[in-house]
C-alpha cells in the first residue's frame, strides 16, 4: 500500500473526533480487514443480566454495511435498547467506518482504524464518537485481536471525560463454519486516570464464530459470546450475538 492513500486514510480518521459509547450488551469485536464490494445486513443483539435478575438490559441493532474500496468499509446502524423493563425504545443511529491500513500479513501486525459517530435519540445524550486502532495478528491458526478505542460525548446535557474502551479476542480457526475462543470488552474511565475496579466495566467469556456460504456469492457470518462480568459495573452475564448476511 503506497504512502499517499495511507495519509488520506489518516486524515479522514483524524477528522473524526473521539466520543464515548455506552458499554451496550450488543457490543462486538471490530476487525481491521475490509473486502471491497462486500455488502451486508448486520444484526447485533445482546442481553445483560445482573444477579438473579435476567434481562436487565437488552440492546439490538440492524445495520447495512458496504466495502467501498479495498481499504474502507462503512456501515450505518439503527440501535434499539430496553432497560429495566421500561419498554423498547429507539436509542440512536450509528455510522461506523473501518479503514484498513495494511494488507493482512504485510506488516508484523495487521492494522486498521475504526471511527464511529452515534447520534443519540435522546437529545440529553448528545453525540457519541469512538476512534482508535484495530490490531490483528495470526499465530498459525490462532487469531488475536486487540482494539483500543477512545470515546467521548459531545453536546449532551451531562459532561463526560474521554474514556478508553478496549476489546480483545483470541480464537482458534478450526473450520470455516466453526471457530472458538475467548473475547472481552472493557471500559476504562476516564482515559487519563482510571477509576477503581468497582467503577470499571470488564466482561470476558467464551465465543464461537463461523461463516456459512449460501452460494451465489452470499453467506452468513455469525459471532456469539457468553460474557461474565469481571469488574464492578459490568453486567454479571451478557449473552451477545451478531449475524451478518453478506450478498
Amino acid at each position, binding site marked *: 500500500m503506497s504512502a499517499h492513500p*495511507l495519509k488520506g486514510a489518516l486524515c479522514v480518521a483524524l477528522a473524526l473526533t473521539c466520543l464515548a459509547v455506552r458499554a451496550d450488551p450488543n457490543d462486538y469485536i471490530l476487525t481491521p480487514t475490509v473486502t*471491497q464490494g462486500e455488502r451486508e445486513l448486520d444484526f447485533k443483539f445482546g442481553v445483560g443480566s445482573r444477579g438473579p435478575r435476567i434481562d436487565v438490559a437488552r440492546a439490538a441493532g440492524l445495520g447495512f454495511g458496504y466495502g467501498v474500496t479495498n481499504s474502507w468499509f462503512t456501515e450505518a446502524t439503527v440501535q434499539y435498547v430496553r432497560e429495566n423493563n421500561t419498554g423498547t425504545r429507539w436509542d440512536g443511529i450509528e455510522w461506523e467506518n473501518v479503514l484498513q491500513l495494511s494488507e493482512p500479513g504485510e506488516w508484523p501486525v495487521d492494522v486498521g482504524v475504526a471511527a464511529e459517530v452515534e447520534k443519540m435519540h435522546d437529545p440529553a445524550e448528545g453525540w457519541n464518537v469512538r476512534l482508535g486502532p484495530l490490531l490483528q495478528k495470526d499465530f498459525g491458526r490462532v487469531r488475536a485481536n486487540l482494539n483500543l478505542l477512545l470515546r467521548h460525548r459531545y453536546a449532551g446535557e451531562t459532561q463526560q471525560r474521554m474514556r478508553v474502551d478496549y476489546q480483545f479476542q483470541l480464537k482458534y480457526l478450526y473450520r470455516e463454519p466453526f471457530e472458538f475462543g475467548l473475547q472481552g470488552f472493557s471500559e476504562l474511565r476516564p482515559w487519563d486516570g482510571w477509576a477503581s475496579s468497582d467503577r470499571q466495566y470488564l466482561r470476558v467469556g467464551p465465543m464461537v464464530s463461523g461463516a456459512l456460504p449460501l452460494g451465489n456469492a452470499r453467506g452468513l457470518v455469525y459471532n456469539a459470546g457468553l460474557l461474565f462480568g469481571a469488574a464492578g459495573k459490568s453486567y454479571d452475564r451478557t449473552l451477545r450475538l451478531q449475524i451478518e448476511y453478506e450478498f
Partner: protein
Amino acid sequence: MRGVCWLLLLAAEPAVCAEPAAPVEPEFTIHIRMHQFQPAELKVPAGVKLRIVVQNDDDVADEFDSYALHREKHVPPKSKATLFLGPLESGRYPFKGEEHSGSGVASGLLIVQ
C-alpha cells in the same frame, strides 16, 4: 484531543514516512483469465514469507478466497491485488474465485513444499 492526534500519528509514522522498499519476499503471480486461475496449481517454498500477485485479466471483478490461507481479496477488472502469506508449513492450501453464472467457481491450489 491533541494527545489523541499525536498517538495516532506515532502509531502510523513508520508506514507513512517509510520509503517504498524493494520487495524482499519471493513473488509469484496468478492470473485470472476467463474466470479461471492460471496457473491453477502454484508451487511455493515453505517457511518463508511470500508475495502473491493476483492479476485479473478479465473485464469483470473476481476474487481470491481461501479459508486455509485466511485470505479473501476482491480483484477489480483489469487490476491486480497483492497478498502477503506465510511463513507457511508444507501442505496444500486450496483457494477459489467468485461465482460467475455459466462458468461456476474457479478453484486453485497452493502447494507449499
